[in-house]
């Protein structure tokens, strides 16, 4: 008998000892699917979770870990097709799994509120914000209807929406993503809930907006009696707002402890691997990849679910399922070898360094401008020309052979448009794209020659979208070869196998369809397709943003390996600054289609000059408990570029006023490889950044 198993008999709930009343008590809950042959396939397995009043609990896990199912079960709700296998969910004194529909209706939205991931989809598009707020108040509070108006303004103030009178009269589509999320939070607060459930509330928002929303949530929870359960895949966001972290893997809780315990000294190998796979803004290395993938639903036998991917596994892990047991420091861990985790660490590999020796320019972009404005028929008749400023303007840069150049910026910064213009998918309205050896590229790909097309290949963001669901992997890989080469079928087949080997997929993948692959595997195929015809420049459009962090780490490592082996040049577009830090040599910071700052990634990250770069970098979240990002720029979302002056003028915290509003910022060269576009002098900017008390 193992001593660990003895300690597992202690029910894991006595820990948060203040012993205030328990608000939510989930006891041995199992939920899952029933397959056509009546097999039970659990999605949640024996969940034990006790949440006390005023606690802030983060539930973290990758896709498929069951975290959202758990959050919804906590409301007594199961998605269609899911079955309740056993266990209990107590909210205060009500058993939710047995509660009547009427009871549930009263509790949900009232005593228990959910803030969903996508506010734009959870708000009704046909109702004004005011009417939706009225409904929330009418259904879940006993206030006098005469006071609703006053109450709404109060709620809007609570979620820091200025100009409440104006906002409540708008429809959801007239608000920005951040504002919509604030309205959703206000609606959840309307019922004065005891428990606030948040399901990835900031996923899909820009990093600065995310930082603002998280700051707001943190304030709300600290200033009220609310209990919060925050479900996310993003450990950074959880570290920002939660004091307690629950790590889920394959439908079970593998670790449960305070934020410090989980984030600083994780004693479960999965928690440690997950942390190591997160790229950091201030670490010049690739994150450690976690190989393999979680077991499929229902594939679990009597074994540790993480064993196949675990470096510390033993015979025991494969024959017996570990229990969640209490450790000396008060955290709960589901692992037989948790004692050994401390001395083990996943290896974080330094990435291949680019050395600019050849000074050979691969691609040269001069004065690129892109405009999506379309002249209608009548405009053409009356010879009216569009007056709105172009989406992308005056973008010039070059890439040297073997270099990785990153374009970084928030949504709407035009980074993807620039990439698509280089690929020929979006026509340019001005500027030149010059390709080494092949000369000038025409702006549409129909007019480009085969060898020009062959040299530049594009990898898309979402592999579900970029792989044809009706073609086998073999067929998908063949296309570029058939198009660019005269190889016979046999050598094409061999080339496909060779490239699959390079992206670390076996030959048996040739006959599979994309739907039979995991997200990471699909992205490997998409990358293989870009590499197969010996392209020189690979354009990567947010290639890791649709993937889980552990998979993202593996894809980043693959890209780095391929660069070493094949000597390609990357143009890498991303919104995640930490990913850019891990993979890129040089970075261009874009705002509203205009360049803010260019420079080597290390130098820019250590000493950002442009106010926008500074604001972006300070808003990045770190998976460190108690970490608070600085909020520099104003949380305004702009839908179109300004007509004159600096693009960043409306959000800038260092704006000089008139000159910024009237004149385009001048280019300043800080060092041979660093450029800045700002009216303020570079030296002055770095002095201001170091001076205390300049935050707004």
């Amino acid at each position, binding site marked *: 008998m193992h001593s660990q198993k003895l300690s597992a008999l202690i029910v894991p709930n006595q820990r948060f000892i203040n012993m205030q009343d328990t608000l939510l008590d989930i006891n041995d809950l199992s939920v899952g699917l029933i397959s056509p042959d009546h097999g039970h396939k659990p999605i949640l397995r024996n969940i034990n979770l006790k949440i006390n009043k005023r606690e802030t609990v983060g539930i973290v896990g990758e896709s498929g870990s069951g975290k959202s199912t758990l959050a919804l079960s906590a409301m007594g709700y199961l998605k*269609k097709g899911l079955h309740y296998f056993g266990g209990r969910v107590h909210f205060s004194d009500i058993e939710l799994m047995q509660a009547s529909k009427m009871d549930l209706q009263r509790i949900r939205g009232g005593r228990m509120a959910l803030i969903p991931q996508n506010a734009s989809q959870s708000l009704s598009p046909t109702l004004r914000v005011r009417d939706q707020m009225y409904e929330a108040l009418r259904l879940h509070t006993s206030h006098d209807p005469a006071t609703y108006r006053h109450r709404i303004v109060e709620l809007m103030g609570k979620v820091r929406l200025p100009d409440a009178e104006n906002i409540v009269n708008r429809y959801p589509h007239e608000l920005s993503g951040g504002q919509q999320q604030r309205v959703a939070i206000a609606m959840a607060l309307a019922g004065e809930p005891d428990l606030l459930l948040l399901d990835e509330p900031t996923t899909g928002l820009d990093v600065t907006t995310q930082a603002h929303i998280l700051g707001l949530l943190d304030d709300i929870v600290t200033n009220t009696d609310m209990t919060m359960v925050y479900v996310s895949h993003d450990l950074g966001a959880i570290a920002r707002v939660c004091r307690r972290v629950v790590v889920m893997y394959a439908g079970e809780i593998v670790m449960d402890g305070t934020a410090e315990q989980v984030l600083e000294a994780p004693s479960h190998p999965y928690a440690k691997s997950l942390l190591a796979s997160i790229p950091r803004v201030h670490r010049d290395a690739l994150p450690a990849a976690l*190989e*393999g*993938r979680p077991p499929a639903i229902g594939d679990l036998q009597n074994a540790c679910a993480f064993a196949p991917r675990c470096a510390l596994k033993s015979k025991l892990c494969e024959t017996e399922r570990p229990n969640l047991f209490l450790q000396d420091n008060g955290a709960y861990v589901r692992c037989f070898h948790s004692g050994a985790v401390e001395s083990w660490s996943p290896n974080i590999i330094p990435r291949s360094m680019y050395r600019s020796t050849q000074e050979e320019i691969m691609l040269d972009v001069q004065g690129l401008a892109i405009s999506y404005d379309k002249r209608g028929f009548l405009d053409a008749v009356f010879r009216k020309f569009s007056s709105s400023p172009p989406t992308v303007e005056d973008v010039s840069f070059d890439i040297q052979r073997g270099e990785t150049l990153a374009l970084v910026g928030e949504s709407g910064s035009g980074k993807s448009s620039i990439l698509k213009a280089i*690929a*020929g*998918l979006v026509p340019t309205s001005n500027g030149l794209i010059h390709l080494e050896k092949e000369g000038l590229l025409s702006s549409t*790909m129909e007019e*480009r020659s*085969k060898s020009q*097309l062959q040299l530049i*290949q*594009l990898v*898309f*963001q*979402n592999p579900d*979208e*970029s*792989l*044809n*669901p*009706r*073609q086998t992997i073999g*067929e998908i890989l063949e*296309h*570029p070869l058939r*198009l660019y080469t005269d190889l016979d079928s046999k050598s094409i087949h061999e080339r496909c196998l060779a490239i699959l*080997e390079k992206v*670390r*997929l*076996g030959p*048996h993948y040739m006959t*599979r*369809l994309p739907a*039979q692959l995991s997200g990471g*595997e699909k992205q490997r195929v998409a990358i293989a*397709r870009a590499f197969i015809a010996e392209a020189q420049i690979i354009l990567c459009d947010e290639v890791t943003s649709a993937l889980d962090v552990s998979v993202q780490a593996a894809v980043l490592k693959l890209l780095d390996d391929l660069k070493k082996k094949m000597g390609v040049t990357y143009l890498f577009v991303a919104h995640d600054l930490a990913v850019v830090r891990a993979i890129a040599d040089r970075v261009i910071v874009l705002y509203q289609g205009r360049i803010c700052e260019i420079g080597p990634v290390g130098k820019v990250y250590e000493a950002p000059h442009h106010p926008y770069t500074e604001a972006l970098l300070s808003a990045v979240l770190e998976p460190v408990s108690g970490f608070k990002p600085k909020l520099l720029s104003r949380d305004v979302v702009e839908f179109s570029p300004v007509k004159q002056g600096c693009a960043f003028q409306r959000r800038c915290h260092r704006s000089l006023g008139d000159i910024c509003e009237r004149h385009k910022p001048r280019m300043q060269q800080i060092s041979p490889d660093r450029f800045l576009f700002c009216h303020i002098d570079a030296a002055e900017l770095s002095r201001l950044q170091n001076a205390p008390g300049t935050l707004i």
Partner: protein
Amino acid sequence: MTVMSYSYKVPKSRFFETMTGIVSRPSGAIGLFLVVTNVILAIISPWIVPYDFKVVNANIILDGPSWQHWLGTDQLGRDVLTRTLLGGRQAMIVTMTATPLAILWGGCLGIYTGLVAGRFDEIVMRIVDAFLSLPWILKMLLIIVMFGSGIFVLIPTLAFFYGIPVIRIARAATHAVVARDYVSAARARGQSRLSIIWFEILPNVLDALLVEGAMRCSWMLLAFTSLSFLGFGVSPPTPDWGLMIADARSYMAIAPWAGLAPVIALSLLIIGINLTADALAKAVGLDRAQSAVH
């Protein structure tokens, strides 16, 4: 360097999967049974019918069902069972040739306009709107008056008019596919338009076209029968459901069997086609009734 490998079940072919999908649904099983029975009976009918379909017998005019004549006799004393068994042959031949033709030309044009978009698409769609705004029977009668009503006129005419709504379906399905990144990827690679249609779009639009084709079959059958009913389809004495219904209409009150037999046969076939099409749509995941709710 390790190569990843996972346990993996080899999938059955998509055709097999779809067929199982149809048969495993009650509507599909019933529908397919009705269609197959109808088609088999139509094929073997010349060898199994008890009487000659054109022998007139004045002694047994409008006789009720009996052991000699299971479904009775019509106004000229001909066996209704014989004529009902034989009466679907023409309609089925026309349906089975004209529907694939309609899907083929409508599908090709629809996919092409959906892909190129712009002014060409604009023009084609306005012409389609113009055609759809006229009642079909008017257009059909016009053609028949001009070229006669032989089977070689009817098949291309029906195929032409029934291909027009298919343009819309194919275009809409293409629009959904063209926006996907794999089409952008093919364009960025420099793939020709034809190969984009063949490799990237067609496999993803085919489901919608097949379901549409199955639906069109029942419309086509009804259209041909209607023309026969009006006297523009098959000429007497060839047995045909539409013609039989037209003939028996006057004697409905005294001899309902003469009219009911072809009506029931036609209805069963159409219900069978619709049920099959419905099950097909569900089997390939194109069920509209399901997709709205999550």
